[in-house]
C-alpha cells in the first residue's frame, strides 16, 4: 500500500506543480469569502466589534470546513470526473481495489493540500488579526477530524459511484456541515450536548477550538469520544463504499451514468 500511496503522491504533486493556478485560485477565493463574511458581520454589528475567542473559534470551524470540502471534492468529485472522462473502470481493474486507491489518493492529496490549508489559515489570521495557538498535541484531535472527514467523503463517494452526478446533492451535505463545524457544539449541554457527540467531526473540532482558541488543556475523555466518532464514521464510509461498489457491479453501471 505504501507503493500505491507514493504513486498517488507523485501524481498529485505533478498536477499541483503543473497547474498552480488551481491552488492559487482556491486560496484566494476561500480567504476572500471568509474575509467578506467577516467584514459583513462587522458592518451589521459594529465596526469596533471585538469577538475575541469567538472569532478564533469561527475561523477554526471555517478552515476545517474548507478542509472537509477539499477531502470530499477529492474523493466524490474525483470519482465523478473519472466516470465522466472514462478512467474509472481502469481504476477498478487494479488489484488494490477502489477503496484503497481512493483512500491513498485522498491521503496523498491531503499531504499537499495541507499547504494550501495552512496558507488560507494564515491569510485569514492576518486579515482578521485573530490569535490562534498551535500546540503540538492538536495533532490528535486533528486526526479524529480527518477520520470523520474521510468517512463522510466515502459516504458521499458511495452515492457518486451509483449516481455519478452529485453536484446538486453535495450542498445538502456541505452547508449544514458548515453550520455544525462553526458553531461551538462543545458548549451544548444536556440532550443537545449528547446529540452533538454523534455529529461527524464535531467532537474533534470542539477539541481543536478548546486548544487553539481558548488555550485549554486537552480533555482526554472528549478525545476518546472524538476518536470513537471518527472511527465509526470512517468505518461506515468504507463499508458503504464497498456496498456501493458491489451494487454498481451488479447493475453494470461502473462506467458512465
Amino acid at each position, binding site marked *: 500500500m505504501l*507503493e*500505491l500511496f*507514493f*504513486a498517488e503522491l*507523485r*501524481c498529485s504533486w*505533478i*498536477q499541483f506543480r*503543473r*497547474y498552480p493556478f488551481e491552488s492559487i485560485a482556491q486560496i484566494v477565493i476561500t480567504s476572500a469569502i471568509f474575509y467578506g463574511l467577516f467584514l459583513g458581520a462587522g458592518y451589521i454589528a459594529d465596526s469596533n466589534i471585538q469577538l475575541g475567542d469567538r472569532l478564533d473559534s469561527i475561523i477554526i470551524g471555517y478552515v476545517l470546513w474548507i478542509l472537509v470540502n477539499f477531502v470530499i471534492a477529492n474523493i466524490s468529485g474525483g470519482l465523478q470526473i473519472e466516470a465522466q*472522462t*472514462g*478512467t474509472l*473502470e*481502469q*481504476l*477498478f*481493474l*487494479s*488489484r*488494490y*481495489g477502489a477503496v484503497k*486507491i481512493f483512500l491513498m489518493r485522498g491521503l496523498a492529496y491531503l499531504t499537499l493540500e495541507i499547504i494550501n490549508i495552512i496558507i488560507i489559515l494564515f491569510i485569514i489570521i492576518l486579515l482578521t488579526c485573530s490569535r490562534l495557538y498551535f500546540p503540538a498535541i492538536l495533532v490528535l484531535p486533528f486526526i479524529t477530524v480527518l477520520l470523520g472527514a474521510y468517512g463522510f467523503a466515502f459516504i458521499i463517494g458511495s452515492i457518486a459511484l451509483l449516481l455519478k452526478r452529485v453536484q446538486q446533492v453535495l450542498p445538502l451535505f456541505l452547508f449544514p456541515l458548515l453550520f455544525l463545524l462553526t458553531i461551538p457544539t462543545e458548549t451544548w449541554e444536556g440532550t443537545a450536548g449528547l446529540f452533538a457527540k454523534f455529529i461527524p467531526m464535531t467532537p474533534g473540532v470542539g477539541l481543536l477550538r478548546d486548544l487553539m482558541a481558548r488555550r485549554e488543556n486537552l480533555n482526554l475523555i472528549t478525545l476518546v469520544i472524538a476518536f470513537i466518532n471518527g472511527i465509526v464514521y470512517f468505518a461506515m464510509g468504507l463499508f458503504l463504499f464497498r456496498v456501493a461498489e*458491489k451494487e454498481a*457491479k*451488479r*447493475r*453494470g453501471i*461502473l*462506467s*458512465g451514468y
Partner: protein
Amino acid sequence: MIALEANNLRKTYCLNNQRVEAVKNVSLNIVSGEVVAFLGPNGAGKTTSIKMMAGLIKPDSGWTKISGINPHRNPRALEKLGAVLEGNRNVYWRLTPQENLEYFGVLKGLNHSQARKSGIALLERFGLQNKRRTAVQQLSRGMQQKLAFAVALVHQPKVVLLDEPTLGLDVEATEEVKILVREIAASGCAILLTTHQLDIAEKLADRIVIIQKGEIITELPTDELISKFSGNTYQIEMESVLDEVRITKLEQIGVEVEEKRIIYVNQPELIYQVFDIMKPLQLKFVEKAEADLTQIFLKLVKEGK
C-alpha cells in the same frame, strides 16, 4: 495453458420495469498466444460479456477465471489482466505517457522501479519515446490509443481484452494496431478482441466467436469458418473482354459469365474445359472464391433473427 475461462455467464438487467437478458449463456476458453474475435451486432452482449470476464460487472450466474483465479473473488486475478475499453479514455490526459505508465504500473501491482523500466521499454516499442513528456491531451488519437495499449501491457498480463481497439483511428493507426495485436499475441498473451471491422477480425483472429441476443451462435477457428461457408467455386478474370462466341460456349457448358470478363465455375471438373475455351487469351487471375467474414457474419446473424 488456458489463460481465460468463462463458464455459463448470465446477466439480466431491469430496464424501465422490463427484464432484459443481456447475456444468456456465454462460455469461452482462450489459451495463451491465441487471438479470439468476439463479434456480434449492437446490443448482442459483447461488452457485457467482456466486462463480466474482467470483473467489472457481476454475473448473475456462472464464473470466470483469469489464469485460474476468479476476479470476482480474488482481486489478484487482475494482475494477469490488461484491458483497452471502448468509450473510455483509459489514460489520464493531464499526465504524460511516461507518468501514465508509471502510475498504472503501480496500480497493477508493480513497484515504481519496475513500472518505470517497463514503461520506458513500452514507449520505445510503441514508438512513443519522443512524446514521453508530452501531455496525453496533446497527442493524436492514434498515439493515445497506442498509449492505452501500452498501459494495458505495462505489467505483462496473461490476458488482454480489447474492446473496439481501432474505433476512431485512421488507416495508418489501424494498421499499426493490427501489427501490435499480432506482436502481443506472439509474446504469449491471450487476446479477446471485439470489433465491428470484420476484415480486421478476419486477419487477426485465430478463432471467431459470434454472439447474438446474449448467446453464442458460432464458435470456430477462422479458417474453418470461412471454408465452411465457401463453396468450390472458382473465379477467373480475363485481361480483356470476351467475344460473344466464347461467351456462348461457356454458357453452354453451364458456366456463369459476368461483365464479359469474369467467369464463375461452380463445378471444379469444368475448369479445364473453360481453360480450353479461353486459349490463348490472357488471364488476369484464377482463384477459389472464398466467402469473407462480413458475408458469413451477415448470413449467420440473419439466420439467428
